[in-house]
């Protein structure tokens, strides 16, 4: 069963003089248990609104959403959910331990359990020695890690992270990434909302791209980034031997940058049988193959294409 089920979700904000701003328009999404899901989109695409709807911070104007089998935003669903918002405004007078203690109490954790969990999560985010320090003196990265500790406090089944790597240095990002990987290993479902594509690429296995409140594209990251029928061949044999062996056997062959002492080509083939036939020809001609791999586009390419397609689609709808 899906851990998040969203069907035809709409959210429109209304201004003081009846001006309406649609933030989500018929969003359909499903996230399976144990996945690391990345929600991508340009600024103003509706990513934060979607997360807030799922947590009940924002009321929907249409459609439905369910979290862990309960209606999104219900106290029952929030019991098993951790949330790390994009903007964190912890009261400066509180110590890190007091912040966590407050959230533990709001989650109904008994005192002894709170003490133990606070110790554990502070260790996990590498902030054990900062528990008795006031949040007002923390750097942005430390606040980020404290926010993560707070989100992990109740050992949630589903973790929402809004821009988890925003504004922290590369070392801090590694720490956050490692924590998220450990969470995923334990079976926690991750829902990451970010515009830092490289971070999403490193952590997530499933993504959706949101544009102007609509899902422009969604699917498995590996499928979205793999280019159909394009492969990279690396060989140790001289170029003329390779070209002679593949003459007429592939649709196109193009020399590309290779590691030192080797030769590389980008092959375009009609399909997997033609690729295997090409390999047979290479082996028949005693070509020394170092590697053959599917060519992948970067997530950035996929993202830009999806946003561009969505823009064109919207323009077509408006014109018609």
């Amino acid at each position: 069963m899906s851990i998040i089920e969203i069907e035809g979700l709409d959210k429109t904000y209304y201004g003081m003089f009846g001006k309406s701003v649609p933030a989500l328009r018929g969003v359909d999404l499903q996230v399976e248990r144990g996945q690391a899901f990345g929600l991508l989109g340009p600024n103003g695409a509706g990513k934060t609104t979607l997360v807030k709807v799922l947590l009940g911070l924002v009321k929907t104007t249409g459609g439905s959403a369910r979290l862990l089998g309960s209606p999104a935003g219900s106290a029952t669903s929030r019991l098993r959910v951790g949330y790390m918002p994009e903007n964190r405004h912890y009261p400066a007078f509180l110590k890190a331990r007091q912040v966590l203690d407050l959230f533990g109490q709001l989650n109904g954790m008994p005192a002894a359990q709170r003490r133990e969990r606070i110790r554990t999560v502070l260790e996990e985010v590498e902030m054990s020695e900062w528990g008795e320090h006031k949040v007002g003196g923390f750097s942005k990265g430390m606040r980020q890690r404290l926010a993560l500790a707070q989100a992990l406090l109740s050992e949630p089944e589903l973790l929402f992270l809004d821009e988890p790597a925003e504004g922290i240095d590369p070392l801090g990002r590694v720490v956050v990434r490692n924590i998220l990987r450990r969470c995923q290993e334990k079976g926690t479902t991750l829902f990451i909302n970010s515009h830092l594509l490289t971070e999403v690429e490193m952590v997530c296995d499933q993504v959706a791209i949101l544009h102007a409140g609509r899902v422009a594209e969604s699917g498995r990251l590996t499928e979205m980034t793999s280019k159909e029928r394009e492969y990279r061949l690396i060989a140790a044999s001289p170029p003329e031997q390779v070209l002679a062996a593949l003459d007429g056997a592939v649709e196109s062959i193009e020399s590309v940058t290779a590691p030192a002492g080797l030769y590389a080509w980008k092959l375009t083939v009609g399909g997997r049988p033609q690729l295997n036939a090409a390999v047979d020809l290479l082996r028949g001609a005693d070509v020394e193959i170092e590697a053959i791999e599917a060519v992948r586009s970067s997530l950035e390419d996929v993202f830009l294409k999806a946003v561009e397609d969505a823009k064109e689609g919207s323009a077509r709808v408006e014109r018609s």
Partner: protein
Amino acid sequence: MSNTGVASQIEGPAATPTHGARLIIAQVAAMVRFTTLESLHRWTLMAFLLAVTLFLLLLATTVNLDIVEGNLAAARLFGKTIELPEVGIEAVDIVTTFQVVVISLLYSVGVALALFSTSNLVPRLCVDGWVDLLLAQPVARPTLLLGRATGAVAVVALSISYLIVGSWMLLRWKTGFGNAGFLLAGAIIVATYAVCYSGMVLVGVVTRNSPVSILAGLFFWLSGHVFHLFHAYPAWSTSLRAGWQRQMGEFITESVYWTLPKSHGLAEMAANAARGEPVSGAPLLFSLPFAVGSLALACFWFARRDY
């Protein structure tokens, strides 16, 4: 994966359940504790507590009263003997006069200071990046807001109790006379604050603005006195020329008077209690609809709003 919080406590067979009423009490307690911690970092509260401590220390160390058969026989202030009039002064009168002065000061300065120092508690609760974190927890929005309001009232009640109970005990020790009405007067002042603060909660949650919130609190408190004048002296309407103007004027002032807190009546209640005279609970009773209505509207607004 198990949740060690409430989820597992509901689902897990071995865990101690913390849900329903117990969970709500725990959540309110958490908000009260958080609000108390926050208040202790405010200079207004700390200055008040410091001033009260100094006052109590002075009262304990510099005032010496010799009471003989209920009358003041001798008095020393800062070690110097005070000349007493030949007419006997009863200890009861000294204590009562002193306590009425304390209550008068507390009603005027104390309530204003309390409203001022707690005016930004609700707007600060609604700050982006904090309110969304709190609302993402398994806590009902009214619980969160009422917990915050309870925390504010608790802090003010404890501060006022420190002054009232402290000075009551010292005077009892020095004169042997304990006026229970003084303690009741302290409770009435806390109630006056609580009624005005409930209006501030509503304004705070709607506007999310501290200055507007404090102005509203002072308005609710002071306007009760102003509209009491219209209510107590209905002859004011004879200054209006047309009959419909008089009717309209009376209708408006009476409506506002019965809607707002009965600040004047509450002040009289506190003074009477401090004097040891009979106290009517009517002003408190007629102020309750304002408090309950304000809190209900505040919860309704808070529960419906997008954050």
